[in-house]
């Protein structure tokens, strides 16, 4: 019976999500003029759902202080208060408002993940495309260095680096970004390799274009689809890395609310069937699914398959 009820609610959630996604697409298609509108009209519902979720997250992140009834660090009541009108989602182990922390968590988590991923991509794709464009010894050196870095397990490596350099948000971002950038490098290089053999690159070289122009104007725009797709995945993995680091006692400094650490802080409750830890985990999962739905759609458009 319990299974049936759960299935029922899952079905309800999926239907509501679909309906919302569809509606959102219609709105976008009508609201946006010309080409952009047409693009959205042909988008699948899953992509609409994804964009809607991302939009909501962004709004929540930006408007966090306006939405959250309490501050993220303020102790406002007893521990583990149940859900009620004042504390929509109850309170956590220190008596802080769960809902407010989730809302601020959106800001912190999404912000940190975005900065980290952006940095990883800046570093990884610039070097990767550089390796592809220049080739020769530079490519060899960079590729070997990346091979070496990738052969060290990421979690252990970040553990080492964070212990050496401390666990401020800045080092956290830098360490995860550097480790992630090795993965981005690989992708960017292989995508770049496919592009540099194209005639227009040859034409640009013969024109006497400099490296900067070659990479930024000629290669990068054509490598953007797979890079953006990877961005989506990596973006989500940053939460997981932070969460795993929290598990090992590193991670984001309290009392800053971030979903990864919040999962860790409340995880024990799941042992007793309490769903509180599902909330931050669900926030991460929903965003991951949403981002990837959008990414899938973009990849699909880029691949030219019309199905």
């Amino acid at each position, binding site marked *: 019976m319990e299974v049936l009820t759960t299935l029922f609610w899952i079905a309800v959630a999926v239907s509501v999500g679909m309906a919302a996604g569809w509606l959102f697409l219609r709105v976008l298609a009508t609201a946006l003029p010309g*080409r952009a509108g*047409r*693009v959205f009209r*042909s988008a699948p519902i899953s992509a609409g759902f994804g964009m809607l979720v991302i939009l909501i997250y962004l709004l929540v992140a930006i408007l966090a202080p306006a939405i959250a009834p309490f501050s993220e660090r303020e102790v406002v009541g007893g521990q583990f208060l149940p859900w009620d009108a004042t504390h929509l989602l109850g309170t956590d182990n220190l008596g802080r408002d769960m809902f407010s922390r989730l809302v601020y968590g959106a800001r912190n988590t999404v912000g940190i993940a975005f900065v980290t991923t952006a940095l990883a991509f800046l570093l990884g794709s610039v070097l990767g495309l550089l390796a592809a464009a220049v080739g020769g010894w530079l490519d060899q050196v960079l590729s070997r260095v990346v091979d070496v870095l990738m052969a060290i397990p990421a979690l252990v490596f970040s553990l080492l680096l964070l212990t050496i350099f401390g666990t401020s948000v800045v080092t956290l971002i830098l360490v995860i970004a550097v480790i992630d950038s090795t993965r981005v490098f690989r992708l960017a290089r292989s995508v770049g390799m496919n592009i540099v053999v*194209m*005639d*227009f690159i*040859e*034409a*640009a*070289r*013969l*024109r*006497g*274009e400099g490296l900067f122009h070659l990479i930024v*104007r*000629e290669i990068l*725009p*054509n490598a*953007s689809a797979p890079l953006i797709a990877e961005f989506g995945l990596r973006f989500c993995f940053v939460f997981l890395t932070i969460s795993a680091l929290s598990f090992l006692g590193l991670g984001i400094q309290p009392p800053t609310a971030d979903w990864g650490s919040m999962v860790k802080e409340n995880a024990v409750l799941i042992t007793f069937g309490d769903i509180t830890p599902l909330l931050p985990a669900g926030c991460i999962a929903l965003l991951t699914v949403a981002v990837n739905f959008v990414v899938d759609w973009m990849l699909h458009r880029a691949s030219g*398959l*019309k*199905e």
Partner: protein
Amino acid sequence: MSETDKPVLLRMRDIHIDGRTEEGWQPIIKGVDLTLHKGEVLGLIGESGAGKSTLGLAAMGYTRDGCRITGGSIEFDGIDLVKATERTRRSLRGRRIAYVAQSAAASFNPAHRLIDQYVEGPVVHRVMSRQEAERDAVELYRRMRLPNPEEIGFRYPHQVSGGQLQRAMTAMAMSCRPDLIVFDEPTTALDVTTQIEVLAAIRDIVAQFDTAAIYITHDLAVVAQMADRIKVLLRGEEVEEADTRTMLSSPREEYTRSLWAVRSHVSPAKPRPAPDAVPVVSVRAVTAGYGRMDVLHNVNFDIHRRRTVAVVGESGSGKSTTARVITGLLPPRQGQILFDGQPLPPDYRQRTREQLRQIQMIYQMADTALNPKLRLRDLIGRPARMYLGLKGKALEERVRELLRLIELEPNEFIDRLPSELSGGQKQRVGIARALAAEPRFVICDEVTSALDQLVAEGILKLLDRLQGELDLSYMFITHDLATVRAIADDVVVMQNGRVVEQGPKDDMFRPPHDPYTELLLSSVPEMDPDWLTRLLAEREKGKAGAAADA
């Protein structure tokens, strides 16, 4: 020759097919009727975008992703393919209706041996057992005049040459002895000399098994050899249909006549250069290659001011490598390139910006030669900005001027992406980009071979005009002798990295020829429906004669 007394095999009535674009569904085929009798070969002809392939595939009840049949009926041997279930259609495909694709190299699965792909059809359709099918394959390979018919099936596609693959694919299409084969431009990707063998093999086997065929091509001379009847398509609509000889001798429609007339452009002969004139570009004793392999052996030729030198040869002859040596992409092992009598640094990276500016290149595939993410403003403007330092208004004015020069309306085109252009327009943009540098020498690498003949003709005329206006010298790399005839002043014939013959065009097209030049020239299809038969007979005779001589 009339087939009308034979029973009807395929009848398409008022077929409408739509394709999905970002603007929604757009019609591709707008109500075409088609009737094909048993054993009859119908030629479908038209330019790209005419809907030839779409129609050909519809004959199999198949539409590509993003297309759908919106109206009409397709009746194959009494079965309505539009209404039939997918399962029924699938059981017909490969067994009773087969398909031969344009690029055999791409259409053979690279992961499996030829024989495995051959037997798949008969086995899955339960026509024969695997052993029977393998035996049958050898027989058909033999009939398709493939070398080593017993063994060739055990090779992977990449181990077999293009012409052989195309024949193997025809054999594969024949594997279930279908009633109908759709040939979709089966020889377009082949060299002329190879094309002849494939055409002959296809013609014979279709005749032997009395198979009906739809033969899709844009090459009139080819279709003339293959088809009993010809249907001309234009933008999804039928222009006219007639028996081959009638169609060739007296086309009714203006459009058809214009197709027929394409090959008429011939550039006016120019005075020969003075013997002491310094050539713009000289290729001097160049030997070059990749890795340890030499691709070019001691290549020598000159290109004079305001002249067009056509470098002719089949794939692998070293034409494009020569271009790479001249541009500096491939520094030669020996020899050098002179520009205005002065040696150029062998590597483009050592050349000055001015030297780079003087030599520009136009590529065969405009699709890959234009950065798909840049608008024409930037694509064309970039060289002008780089070399000539133009900025702002002046730059924009120059881009507009160049667009007008290549006959594209500036206001309409300046902010388009390459993907929003047709093939011919893209090639024009390629030209404009080369011209933006204000070069003196332009290398044109197969610039027309990916284009329809009408479009190609437009490009050739444009290039011809610009040569006069802008004082340009061209090196024209091509495998198409018609192009040579149309535009060249001088011809360089290459084979296996060597120059076998060179001289002014008029001398080249006049016998006696080098034997290779002779082979090339004779392989160019002619509009005469009997040309292939006659040529084969002559070659047979020649061979017999040679044997007799020996």
